[in-house]
């Protein structure tokens, strides 16, 4: 299951999607908005995506772990829009017969999301804002 949405994510529902009797291991990862970054007090984050491509890339990542670990049961949900401190931005649930594969595959999903999926976040902190990973990291004045 691949889902990109502006609605809040429900990790329990998403985890249930991959729970099956043949899977002895379920790994669920939550990405959560934290309250500070590089010593700055974060107020909120803003996520946006090139959604058709992001969905396509997430399907591709799920296919890669199917081929590499024979894992059929993967659920990836990413939230967009304004997220406040403590809210869940990402849920990745991976289930497999044994824990080693589930851990490795979920790590692979997370690394891939960080590198290739066209989703961006802007940190809005006290005194400014900045796109994370952008070439101009300096604090732009808030408007």
């Amino acid at each position, binding site marked *: 299951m691949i889902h990109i949405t502006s609605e809040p994510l429900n990790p329990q529902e998403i985890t249930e999607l991959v729970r099956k009797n043949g899977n002895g291991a379920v790994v669920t990862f939550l*990405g959560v908005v934290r309250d500070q970054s590089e010593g700055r007090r974060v107020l909120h984050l803003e*996520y*946006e*995506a*090139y959604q*058709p*491509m*992001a969905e*396509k890339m997430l399907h591709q990542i799920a296919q890669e772990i199917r081929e590499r670990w024979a894992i059929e049961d993967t659920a990836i949900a*990413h939230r967009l829009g304004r997220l406040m401190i403590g809210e869940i*931005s*990402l849920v990745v649930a991976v289930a497999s017969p044994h824990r080693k594969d589930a851990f490795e595959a979920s790590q692979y999903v*997370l690394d891939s*999301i*960080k*590198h*290739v*999926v*066209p*989703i*961006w*976040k*802007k940190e809005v902190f006290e005194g400014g804002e900045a*796109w*994370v*990973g*952008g*070439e*101009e990291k300096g604090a732009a004045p808030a408007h």
Partner: protein
Amino acid sequence: MRVSVRFFAMYRERAGTSQVDMDLPEGATPEDLMARLRSAFPSLPTGSSALVAVNSEYADPKAPLHQGDEVVFIPAVSGG
């Protein structure tokens, strides 16, 4: 030929719009397109770190574009 450009994240903010159509000579590439965009939108980021996607797939910035293509310049991603 005419292609459609969509802007996201820092590119969207710097361009001040999320979408623009551009007329290009036949055989023009994403690199050629970016040169034109920089003239049209001087505030676009100047670094060359952005990748390019054509029709929702990462693409070669030197490969010719085609009529009706949707082109997106993809600055460093930061999902998660």
